């Protein structure tokens, strides 16, 4: 990885992690949506610096969609009935997960290979998506369909209840 990509990688990592932490601590749906969009931009930058421009574009669009969904005026609050101790335990478990995975990444023995792909790779990713791994693409398509139908059904049920 050359120095330009390395700088882009670390800057994007800082943006994505900073955006993620802001999502955790900012109050209000608007600022949280903006922070999530910033985290998405950082993740897209990570993909671009890893020569995965097509995936970066897809991630950027998907994070923008998530940010719009979570910052829209139709946002509704659904409080969790779990006690605070369990939430704190979950947060501690997230820290433990970070430690374990960091240890695995640090102590792992990985193969080093030379990368021959291009910067965007849309053609090769498209070949994989629609030819080699078409079943996985169809599974994700089915997941999207089920999610949208479920979301629409939930919204219609809510509107009928008014």
């Amino acid at each position, binding site marked *: 990885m050359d*120095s330009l990509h390395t700088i882009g990688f670390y800057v994007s990592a800082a943006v994505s992690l900073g955006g993620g932490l802001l999502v955790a601590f900012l109050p209000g749906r608007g600022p949280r949506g903006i922070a999530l969009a910033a985290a998405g931009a950082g993740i897209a930058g990570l993909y671009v610096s890893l020569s995965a421009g097509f995936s970066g574009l897809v991630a950027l669009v998907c994070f923008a969609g998530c940010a719009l969904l979570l910052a829209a005026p139709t946002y509704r609050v659904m409080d969790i009935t779990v006690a605070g101790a369990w939430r704190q335990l979950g947060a501690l478990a997230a820290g433990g997960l970070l430690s374990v995975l960091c240890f695995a990444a640090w102590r792992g023995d990985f193969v080093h290979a030379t990368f021959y792909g291009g910067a965007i790779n849309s053609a090769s990713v498209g070949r994989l998506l629609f030819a080699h791994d078409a079943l996985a693409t169809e599974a994700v398509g089915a997941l999207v369909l089920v999610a949208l139908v479920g979301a629409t059904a939930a919204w219609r049920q809510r509107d009928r209840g008014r």
Partner: protein
Amino acid sequence: MSAGLVSVLFVAVALVAVGAFIASWKKDLTAALAGLPLMFGGAGVAFAGAARFATPGGPPAFGQEVAALVAVAALALVALGVGIAGRGTSR
């Protein structure tokens, strides 16, 4: 200083952990949904990093394909969660 696979995995791990933290820390279930795309994004970064640095024989775009698929899956799950949470109260 060049970034390698270990650096990529550290960033991916941090993203997954931040997403898990958001999902467990937020009292509002709809706000906790924001952790999902971060966790999925972390997994995608790990896949893309493995495709970039450690695929000697296989198709190098496989990890990038998985990264794109998990991003779409994250959007679908957030849409479903927001739709279900639409029965809650406005704030």
